[in-house]
């Protein structure tokens, strides 16, 4: 179903639409007081440090490129800078406990992390066979529809986004209370 690029809507919509709906609802929910309580329940350094899982995801993406399932641009050897966000996560988690400057750095790092995700998600969509295939790379992005790699857009990307949004919300609250 996911592999079928001629379907309308395309097969990847079965994952992308619920993920987008979940992210929009999560962001709206986090803006409420109940959502804020959830974000603030976790220590900030844990939210930030958890982003280091992206190193492992990048290593898997690199292996998929070697196997011919992904264009090079979706890996750290190409135009995907996500591994630097994952690699710097423990440092940022440590810095976030070092006062206001650390919190400001963590805030900037979270914005960079979201931009990095937007970069790789956009590249993944425009290299996938289907109606949005705007870039014809050396090989198409065949990750969508190759079990079990649908868990990257279906689990790891939303997890990274939610962690970033929770961190931004928690940093905002911490900055307000320390004024």
């Amino acid at each position, binding site marked *: 179903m996911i592999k079928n690029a001629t379907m309308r809507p395309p097969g990847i919509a*079965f994952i992308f639409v*619920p993920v987008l709906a979940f992210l929009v609802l999560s962001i709206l929910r986090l803006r409420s007081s109940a959502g804020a309580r959830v974000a603030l*329940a976790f220590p900030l350094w844990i939210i930030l440090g958890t982003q280091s899982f992206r190193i492992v995801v990048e290593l898997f993406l690199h292996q998929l490129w070697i196997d011919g399932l992904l264009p090079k641009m979706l890996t750290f050897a190409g135009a995907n800078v996500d591994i630097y966000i994952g690699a710097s996560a423990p440092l940022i988690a440590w810095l976030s406990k070092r006062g206001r400057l650390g919190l400001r750095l963590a805030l900037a790092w979270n914005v960079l992390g979201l931009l990095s995700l937007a970069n790789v998600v956009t590249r993944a969509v425009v290299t996938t066979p289907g109606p949005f295939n705007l870039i014809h790379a050396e090989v198409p992005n065949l990750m969508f529809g190759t079990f*079990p790699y649908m*868990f990257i857009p279906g*689990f790891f990307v939303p997890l990274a986004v939610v962690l970033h949004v929770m961190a931004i919300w928690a940093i905002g609250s911490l900055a307000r209370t320390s004024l």
Partner: protein
Amino acid sequence: MIMILFVGFVVLMAAFVVALSARYLNGRTAFAIAAGLSMWLIYVGLVDISE
């Protein structure tokens, strides 16, 4: 082999999320996260496998 490693990593991260939720959130919210995440992961797996 790489597929098995990847599925193992998905399970590990899902377990980590559930464990963190159980540690820092109340029981009802943690249960909702665990149930929702399990159902979602099964859905993604089934959609991915289906032809």
